[in-house]
């Protein structure tokens, strides 16, 4: 199987409202894919649906294949065995994602105790190795520390350590650096990249930050209004975007080489609608300069290699 | 993702219960089935519905329903006076403490923290020992016990308000303390105070009921639910229902005020409000 993860027709609903609609994509084994979207696009929910960790009140249907198994059809017990072992996730807010009243050492050792059956001492030893691997200064003393005693960057390294503990096949990283200072962001991304390589892990990096994706990822998925609107190799999607939304996103990045006085901010007209307010058919239709009556019908994702869901691609 | 409807079932339920008690109390001023003080020994211990006594009669033949209706007046009076005392003293104190920071404010807050440790009932018992036990003593004691609760609350909310930029702006163009207090502090603190009042009302009713039960609250002949419970205790074998009705009235009234407080809290501002004040 060259695909580590294959998602087909994933739909997430809350109440009667669909917030992720018919999302399908595959992750090549060992590859790095960026899932780009603004807040409200449904990208985090997609990741949570894959993990089976949607909040109460949200339901998902579709197919999510990890290797041979369809995660959507597995009983919870089986999913628990997979989570943290073969499939892992790094969350956005390191401050709240770690247990404030439990020592770092215990939290890092936990995956080893759950999935590898190690004793407390063995698990702590492995935990220490992990902390060193993620370049935490003075790891030994940090074992006994609490999350509030670490900096934001250190906490995120710990989160990454926890996620990578059992060398998962697939790692979902949801905005891993958004909550961090700019200077720290680069370090953490670098770490992530290195670890993913060393463990031959398949990465799905979820973010709204395009430059990050262009640096780290070889494939890109663009999400808007709960749907994938463009998919393809990073170089092609950024170099020659097909979907008007992607084009708009790229335009909003001010280039460094333009002269200052001449530089203008370019924005996509309109605002991202709230959950229930996307128009029928193509969700981008009422902000798109190229839209017409045809767009009332949702275009399928077409193309090979580089795909777009648009009746009037760029 | 879900939007909370401001007018919740809690608020409605609370308002209905409280409204019912108030209505009954007011109505009793105009009309009761029988004179609550009218004793009729041959008619003692009648069951509900007998001889026109809708809820029965007590050990002296008095009409239970009339007594309960008249008792509602007493209950509400105690609640109102207690809360008024607590607000009259506590709100200005808390407001000034929020406005004028400094050693005096710290000391007052520390002292009031100690007063907070005095449960209302305990203070009321102390007062009953030292002064003449009665409705006035009880109301004064419970009211005073609540002053630090309101002071703390207003100070806390007041401090939040003072952090706001518009207040800093007002100060830069020379607004005096009193003006700030009236114009900015009090209106913003009002929601918190209203919610706490509902809670305080509920606690005051419970405290007064306990006091009257112990014989240290409202004295005869004024009808009082707490005292009715105490009187019913000697006749649990013959007329157990007499122990049911007054307690039920107390419970429903207290429930009503608690629900009202909860509902108002959701309505007014879930962020600013923090409930202080245990039973």
């Amino acid at each position: 199987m060259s695909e580590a993860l294959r998602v087909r027709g994933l739909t997430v609903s809350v109440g009667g409202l669909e917030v992720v609609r018919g999302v399908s994509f595959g992750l090549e084994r060992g590859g790095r894919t960026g899932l780009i979207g603004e807040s409200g696009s449904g990208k985090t929910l997609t990741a949570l649906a894959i993990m089976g960790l949607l909040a109460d009140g949200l339901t998902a249907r579709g197919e999510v294949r990890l290797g041979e198994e369809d995660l959507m059809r597995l009983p919870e017990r089986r999913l628990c065995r997979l989570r943290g072992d073969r499939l892992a996730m790094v969350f956005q807010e390191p401050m709240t994602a770690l247990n404030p009243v439990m020592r770092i050492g215990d939290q890092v050792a936990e995956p080893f105790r759950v999935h590898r059956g190690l004793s407390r001492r063995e698990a702590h030893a492995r935990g220490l190795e992990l902390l060193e691997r993620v370049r935490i200064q003075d790891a030994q003393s940090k074992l006994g520390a609490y999350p509030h005693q670490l900096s934001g960057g250190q906490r995120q390294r710990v989160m990454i350590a926890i996620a990578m503990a059992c060398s998962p096949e697939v790692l979902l990283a949801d905005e891993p650096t958004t909550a961090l200072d700019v200077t720290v962001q680069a370090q953490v991304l670098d770490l992530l990249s290195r670890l993913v390589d060393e463990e031959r892990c398949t990465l799905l990096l979820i973010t709204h930050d395009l430059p990050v994706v262009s640096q780290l990822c070889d494939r890109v998925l663009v999400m808007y209004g709960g749907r994938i609107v463009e998919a393809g190799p990073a170089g092609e999607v950024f170099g020659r975007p097909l979907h008007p939304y992607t084009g708009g996103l790229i335009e909003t990045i001010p280039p460094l080489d333009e002269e200052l006085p001449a530089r203008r901010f370019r924005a996509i007209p309109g605002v991202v609608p709230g959950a229930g307010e996307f128009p029928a058919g193509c969700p981008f239709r009422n902000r798109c300069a190229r839209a017409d009556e045809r767009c009332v019908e949702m275009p399928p994702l077409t193309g090979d290699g580089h795909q777009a869901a648009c009746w009037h691609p760029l | 993702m879900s939007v909370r409807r401001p007018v919740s079932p809690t608020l409605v339920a609370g308002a209905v219960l409280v409204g019912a008690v108030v209505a009954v109390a007011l109505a009793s001023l105009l009309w009761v089935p029988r004179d609550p003080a009218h004793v009729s020994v041959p008619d003692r211990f009648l069951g509900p519905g007998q001889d026109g006594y809708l809820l029965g009669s007590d050990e002296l033949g008095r009409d239970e329903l009339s007594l309960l209706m008249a008792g509602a007046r007493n209950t509400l009076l105690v609640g109102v006076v207690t809360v008024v005392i607590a607000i009259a003293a506590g709100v200005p104190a808390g407001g000034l403490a929020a406005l004028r920071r400094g050693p005096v404010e710290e000391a007052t807050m520390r002292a009031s923290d100690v007063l907070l440790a005095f449960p209302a009932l305990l203070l009321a018992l102390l007062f009953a020992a030292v002064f003449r036990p009665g409705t006035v003593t009880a109301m004064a004691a419970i009211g005073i016990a609540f002053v630090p609760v309101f002071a703390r609350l207003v100070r806390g909310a007041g401090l939040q308000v003072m952090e706001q930029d518009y207040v800093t702006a007002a100060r830069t163009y020379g607004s005096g303390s009193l003006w700030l207090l009236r114009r900015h502090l009090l209106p913003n603190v009002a929601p918190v105070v209203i919610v706490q009042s509902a809670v305080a009302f509920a606690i005051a009713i419970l405290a007064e009921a306990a006091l009257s039960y112990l014989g240290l609250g409202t004295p005869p002949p004024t009808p009082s639910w707490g005292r009715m419970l105490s009187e019913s205790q000697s006749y649990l074998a013959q007329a157990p229902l007499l122990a049911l009705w007054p307690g039920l009235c107390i419970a429903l009234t207290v429930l009503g005020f608690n629900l009202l407080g909860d509902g108002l809290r959701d309505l007014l501002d879930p962020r600013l409000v923090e409930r202080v004040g245990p039973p």
Partner: protein
Amino acid sequence: MTVSLIARAGILAASLAVASVLVFGVVNVLPGDPAVVILGTDATPATLHTLREQLGLDHPGWERYLEWVAGMLHGDFGRSVISKTPVAPDLLEKLTVSGPLAVISMLVAVAVSLPLGLLAGVHHRRLSGALVGAISLGGIAIPAFWFGLLLVTVFAVRLGWLPAGGFTPWDEDPLLALRSLTLPAAALGLIQAAVLTRYVRAAIVGVQREDFIRTARAKGLTRWQALRRHGFRNAAIPVVTVLGVQLTSLLVGAIVIENVFVLPGLGRLLLQAIGNRDLVTVQDLVMLLTAAVLVVNFLVDVSYRLIDPRIRESR
């Protein structure tokens, strides 16, 4: 951590001092002349004078205050105005009733509220959760003494299973003593349980929404494991706070309950002292109860410093 502990203990001592001044002030200063309070307004000047001498009222206030405090610290609580006998031995004797009552009631409250609150919190979207929520609302509104009366009506008067009141000393018949405490402890404890359940439920519901629970599940823990290993300790923080408040409420409620069930404890002693205008005993008892409340608050404060490492450092 030890520094802040010492600081907290200092605050406790200061609070006790302030409380004692307040109690003394209310009893001795506010009413004007304590002797008149005790004997009534139509007492003869001669009897008033004798009483004043006996109570040492001719000494200045602050002197009497210091004597009182010094006495208490040595275990001397003065003499009852009525019986002229020392108060201290009486207090100890009554404590053997009130103490066990308070402890058993608290145990009942905790034993009922923890599992119920947990159940309601975990299943808060199901009917069982809502049901428990409704029942616990009753606990806030139902006066404990009324509940006691209802229990007496059912279990003592109608069914005759348990005594309606009175108390047999422990050394006479411990089993009967325990039976005498059953209904009172049930009344107090169950009402407190209803209130506590609400808070336990809220704490469990709150904790389940936290991000670190999601992280724990992402590691592969089941919902229940995540709750047990990560949630409980965090949920304990608000619960311990409430426990302290409820303990205070319980102590005060016990005063009334002792009178419902005619138990010869501190609460009943207080009532009798109030009725007899025995100001010395009243002053001592109120001080004791207030001190108990302040100590409980202190213990709660200390224990959640132990639970929550974040607080240990900030202050």
